């Protein structure tokens, strides 16, 4: 049996209901922010991966042909990306919580950076696949696309390798990859 006026008990009930509603709103916002974090993190992971691949591809070119004009591409790319990086990249909390323009800039930057890096990487690997030295490694005379696929495979391995690698070893691996890419009938003919 309550010992206070019924208006008080009702007011207390309403306050408790308000509090519960507020907590509910907070919880919903929190859940949305977590989703944004996960989205942005995936984009940054993709950028990081693309950068590593580009760096490895450029290094391979430098080893094969140190005088190749492509060798400056890596440093130019890094400089461009650093230059256009938004200010909230290093402290994205507010942009993630509020979800306004800052968050859009972050998303746009990461998405555009990934596109640029991947485009350049493809150009580098194309050049590499046409390089005479690489062609020379191709003893089975594969098509250019096959060589590019072998180079992609090699780059991916090297980019994810934790130990340092050398150019000759990489070329031997490429040669092995290229011989592995030979079609079966051609391999019989060679034999």
């Amino acid at each position, binding site marked *: 049996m309550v*010992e*206070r*006026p019924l*208006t008080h008990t*009702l007011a207390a*009930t309403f306050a408790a209901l308000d509090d519960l509603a507020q*907590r509910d709103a907070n919880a919903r916002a929190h859940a949305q922010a977590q989703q944004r*974090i996960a989205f942005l993190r995936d984009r940054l992971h993709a950028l990081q991966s693309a*950068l590593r691949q580009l760096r490895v591809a450029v290094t391979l070119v430098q080893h094969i042909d140190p005088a190749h004009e492509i060798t400056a591409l890596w440093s130019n790319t890094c400089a461009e990306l650093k230059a256009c990086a938004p200010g909230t990249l290093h402290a994205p909390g507010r942009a*993630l919580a509020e979800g306004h323009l800052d968050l859009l800039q972050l998303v746009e930057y990461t998405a555009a950076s990934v596109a640029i890096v991947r485009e350049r990487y493809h150009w580098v690997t194309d050049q590499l696949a046409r390089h005479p030295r690489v062609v020379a490694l191709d003893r089975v005379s594969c098509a250019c696309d096959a060589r590019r696929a072998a180079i992609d495979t090699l780059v991916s391995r090297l980019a994810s390798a934790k130990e340092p690698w050398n150019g000759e070893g990489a070329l031997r691996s490429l040669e092995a990859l290229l011989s592995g890419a030979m079609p079966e009938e051609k391999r019989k003919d060679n034999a």
Partner: protein
Amino acid sequence: MRYPKYWDQARVRQVCTTESRQKARDLFLRTHRPFQHIRVDFCKDDGAPGAFVNEEQVRAIVQGGALRADNRLFFVVGEAGSGKSELCQWLEYTADERRSLPIHIPRSMTTAAHVVALLRQKLDSAAPARALQHVPLSTQADYVTLSAVVLLYGQGIPALTPVDSWAQLIGGHEMRQFVAGHLALLARGEFAPLPFADPSLLEPLCHRYALPVSSADLALITGELRRLFARALEQALWSGDVRSLLADISERAVRQGRRPLLLLEDMTAFQVLGDRLLDYLLDLTSGHFDAVIGVTTGFERTQLASATLAGDLTHIHHRLRARFVLTDDHGRSYGLEDDLIELARAYLAAVRTAEPSDHAVPDVFGDGLYPFTETALRRAFACLHEEGNPRQTPRLFLEHILAAALLSDAPPPLAFDRSPYLVPPPTLFRIDEAPDPRLQSLLRWYGEFGDDAVTLDARIARRFGIAPPAAQPANPVIRVSRAYMAQPLDSDVRADWQQELRELQAWLSDGGLYPGRETLKRGIERVLLHLGDPRALGSSDSSSLAGAHIYYARGDERLPIYLGRESGDQPSTPTYVKVQVSGTSAERGILEALAYLALSGAEMSQVCHNVALTLDWAQRHWDAYNNEVRTLLFNRMNGVTVEQLIWTAWRLLGSLVGAPWDSRPHLNPYHANAEPYAQVSPWSPQQHPVCYTAGEMLITYHETVRRLFIGSFTLRDTLLDHDRCAAVQQLETTATTVDRLAHLALPALRTLPYTIRPLGQKLYDLLVPLQRYTQALTQLDCQAALRADLDDLARKETHLAAQQRLDHALFQQQLLTLRWRCGEVGAPWNERWTKAAEWLGSLTREQLTELYADVRRVRSATAALAHAEALDHWAYQRARHALRPILHHPYWAAVATLQEIQAEALATARARYQRGSGLMTGTAPYRQLLKVTRAVWKELADG
């Protein structure tokens, strides 16, 4: 004791012989009374008369056949002694000899030799030779003894063992010589006794053949040997002749222009010969006989069928021409009752050897009936019995009424009393007014029964030398009061009423087994129930139709009555009480009247000699039995009387339904729909769960107890019987009664033989909830319960005190908001909530103030009660009823509902709303994001 007689014993024996054949023709015709009622079962002759004919018509039917018609058979069926011989004899004497040749074979003529001899007489000297006529007698004797030996092996009794030894005796030369001598005598037409007719012949023969025979078996063996030789003679010598003799007689008679009329008195007496005769007659084309055959009823049903080759009584009946029946299904001769006096008069006239002088015999005896009167003869005739069954036949009447009385030295009434064939009529008068047993006998047989007295002409008593009662020495009419008044018509009284009264009087006089005691019990039951049912334990003064009562229901619907004096009844037991009737001499007249009351179905005022005395006797037995029934219940109920039980149960129920009373009971019904138990009960399901549940079970018997109360404590539906109320209040110490009821052992009461009428409920079914409720009451801690009530009141008072500052406008707004908020969080709103919210919304400050004041007042009163020394459950119930307006005020229910709504809203919100928010930058995903960002930046920086 002698009295004037006008006959001698020899004459009586001559006239009253039952064998018609033994009477001379003249005597026969003097005593013969025409048969006026002979039932014709069927008759194949055209133009046969109706269901009943007289003897003339029977004769016309029998003699109505054409001369050359085939055999015509007629059965005359009746009980033994019903007049079959008489009819045959009359037919012989009166047959038209121009058309018939009567051949009467009487009952006494049962051997084949006699019958053949009789038949040969009818053939005169021109009879053909018998089959064995040319055989020497010694050879015939050998043939007969050999037949007897064959019969011994086939039909011998155990006493005739070893059979081989007895066969040597039977077939020995001594017996052959004896049989030869018997045949020689027969051939000469002389009397020839059967072998072993003289028992003394057997002993030397047995000695000669070394056959030990004890003297005890001598008669049995002699009789059996005689039977064997008789059958052997019959089979060997005579039976073969019968058929040819009958054929010869038939042909000869027809040649004379007459049909032979064979009158066979009694078929029952014949054995092999009877079968042969019947076979001959049933072969309808074998001759031209008119055969009248007497058959007893039982013999026809059981024996006659097997006597034919077909073995079927129907086979015989199909060949009958007609079947005449002399007695009805009860063994009474048709028409004899009407002709009884004339029959007696004819025989008495024939018996009389001297005519009394004028005025020597009082005319009160009737013309020619001395020493009987018409009343005595008819009464004696009605009392004729044979082998335990009533049997009214002429033979029994002549032998055991007329002859027995005339031959006795004692006057007829005393002779009647001694006769084993007469069951004396019951004594219908007060024997204390006629103490002389001879006078009692005379009154029983000769007395005239009036409505209130039995009368007798004093001249009859004087004639028999019997003195009239001392109180009326010179009265011309002896008058003795009846034991009861016999107003009803005789036709309304059961037929065996005399037998019933005889049994009652024998029991009253000597005690012992009383077979017809159910009749007396019905009479006793009737007079007791006239005062009300003593098994009903209600108020006899209550005239309310709504009343019910506790009823002792052991046994069936009949009132259990025990007749003492070793009548054969089972006495009362501690659990099966009965009305005790000891049958003392003082009760004799009353009990006789009650037995007749049951037999007649009449009213008490029509039967009872003194209704007041009878009712007084009944009232004493009623009271005694009613007290026994009450005491039995009292003992089984731990010393609670039936009135205390009903009074206490009604008081408990009154309190249960919110209408408590202490000294002046009410009779209000209870309507559960209008007043739910939870509202009217003093008990709370939370605070007093045991009392609440037990009370809920008991309340279903409210109407039962109300009707019991009306049946016990009211005069009419709404008029209390203050005397009975005051009486039970004086005895009543309710605490004790409740305590006793609480300690009832229910399993032991399961077989309690009491019901509640007219509701058809068992008392046990009421006692179960009553015991449980009283037990709950006795186990209730009233002080603790009262303290709990005070605590509750204190909480309520505090709550109400807080509400005195309630902002009603805000409260009303909040109630509206509450509904909206419930919708917001998704708590479903229901109708009950609406009512509560509306009620609270309309609550005024004045209402709250008034309720607050009431609570304070009740709390003060209850607190005062708590300080009282004695607080029993009645006082506590009163306190609870005082609390009911507070406890059941709608405010509390509305507040409880309001709390329920709030709780429901909060619970729904908690279930629906999400939780778990916190700082985003502190989460692991955010830290991983920063780590990746730094790695990218480092890559860019390195480039």
